[in-house]
């Protein structure tokens, strides 16, 4: 089993989507359980990518190609995971808030969450508070992740939390926020459950919030 896992792990780390797909195919053909490939291959590799990013050894380009390699392997794995009754680490709805079209930070968080075993519903950009509320009602996620790049769009995070309260679903979901001007102090001020400064630490926060 080890050689198959190593091939998948290294392919993701190097951002080689073709090798990641080939590795998953070969491992499945050899009868390796899908859950092991997910946990010890794809997720383990993305955890290492996150660590390397936080250590300033990997940068956004390396993270992007690794995430794409992971995603291309995950596509092949998904039917086998479902068939095997493997459950996700949790469900997260993510989006960039109303009035803000910046998405690369949010996309990196979505990729890293998926790489950690979460099911991610990405609402895109310019997401109104009402759209977040409807997504919570429809998808019943454990988490919402909101992103903003501008000080002028940050207030929409507070509006969204108020909208969740008014809809009676605030206590159904944990809210985490991020983005260049966002701070831990702002998160506490608006009643969010947490803040993370980058995509890698967002995964740790998400796991902690989903478990709590």
């Amino acid at each position, binding site marked *: 089993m080890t050689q198959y896992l190593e091939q998948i792990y290294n392919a993701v780390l190097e*951002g080689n989507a073709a090798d990641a797909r080939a590795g998953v195919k070969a491992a499945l053909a050899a009868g390796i359980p899908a859950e092991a490939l997910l946990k010890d291959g794809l997720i383990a590799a993305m955890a290492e990518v996150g660590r390397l990013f936080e250590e*300033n050894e990997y*940068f*956004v*380009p*390396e993270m*992007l*190609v690794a995430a*794409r390699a992971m995603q291309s392997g995950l596509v092949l794995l998904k039917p086998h995971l479902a068939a095997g009754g493997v459950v996700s680490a949790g469900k997260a709805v993510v989006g960039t808030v109303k*009035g*803000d*079209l*910046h998405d*690369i930070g949010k*996309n990196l968080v979505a990729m890293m969450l998926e790489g950690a075993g979460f099911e991610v519903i990405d609402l895109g950009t*310019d997401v109104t508070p009402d759209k977040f509320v409807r997504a919570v009602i429809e998808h019943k996620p454990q988490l919402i992740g909101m992103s903003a790049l*501008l*000080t*002028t769009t940050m207030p929409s995070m507070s509006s969204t939390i108020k909208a969740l309260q008014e809809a009676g679903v605030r206590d159904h979901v944990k809210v985490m926020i991020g983005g*260049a*001007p966002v*701070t831990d102090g702002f998160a506490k001020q608006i009643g969010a459950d947490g803040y993370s*400064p*980058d995509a890698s630490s967002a995964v740790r926060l998400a796991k902690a919030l989903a478990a709590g």
Partner: protein
Amino acid sequence: MTTNLAEEWSPRARFTAIMAHQEADRVPLDLAGTALTSADPQVVAGLRQLLGLPASQKSGFDEPLMAALDVDFRHIGDLIGTASRLVPGRTDRQVDIWGVERAWTGQYWDIVHSPLRGATLDDLASYPWPDPTATIDQARLEQFRCEARRLWEETDYVVVAEHPVFGVFELACWMCGFDDILARLVSDRPFVHALSKKLLTLQKAYIKPYYQAVGPYIHLTTSGDDFGMQTGTFMSPRAFRELIKPYFAERIAYTREFTSAYYWHHTCGSVHTLIPDLIDIGVNILNPIQPGAHKMEPERLKADYGDRLVFHGGFDTQGVLPFGTPAQIEAEVQRVMAAMKPGGGYIFSAAHNIQSDVPCENVLTMLRAARRLGAYGPAA
């Protein structure tokens, strides 16, 4: 604002001294001396009201306002390709000369379509690139030349020429999409080189006539290209050195064939690791010094690079300026000045354009404090 300084230097004398890493009478002040140190029209209208100036028809940064704020810089020029055109039938969508489409989102024109997303080398070859010879407005160039000459010969201000064309990396990001080009920095380097070579050729075609016109009459010129995020650079220093630095270096060198002006470069975010490279290729002044970004604290930058680089900016626009009290603003000005002003080499400004959520009173408090706390010597 009146001065209480014993001897008031001219803006040019002040600038010359700090560029030579010497102390002047006070630190030079900038607001709207460049296109990237400006302010939202609402903020400007508020400033005019606070200062008792009549409302202005134009952008609001006219000579009476600049003089009232004691700004040492005056800028001329602009991007000189054809202006963006509206998408037919829409007032909220426009396309620029590079084919990038933007939507008005209430505060900015934000990109909604990148025409080279997923492009191949063949696509680059067949792409409808802008034609500089056909799209430069000569009458407008002559206006820029006349205004630069007027400021040069008839005033004491530091004359700034705006960049005539965008930066090589930002153009690649806008035309391909950020995620597309960033991934290609590791997975498709030949494409990045081919695109950058093409963009540099076009940049030069805008640079030459522009600086032939304004070059003799300017003290500094600008470019903008963001290499950093809040937490670090977008790309590894190795990728920057291979894929962006050579093209940026050639742009600067080419500009210098037409003007002896100082070179000012704007990059948002955390770029501490790239500063030696920027110095190496001829950047004299670095802007905006976003103090909340990783390793971009004024104290660290001055200690690490203060003898080799002039800094422009440094006052936090992500926290203190929009949300601070007057006392907090004054304290932050004191902190930035204490870190940056010793030995010259510093120009004070907000660390980027001032957005509409900033109270105009905060802007005035910041500038008044900077004027007072930027003084050198016994008048300080």
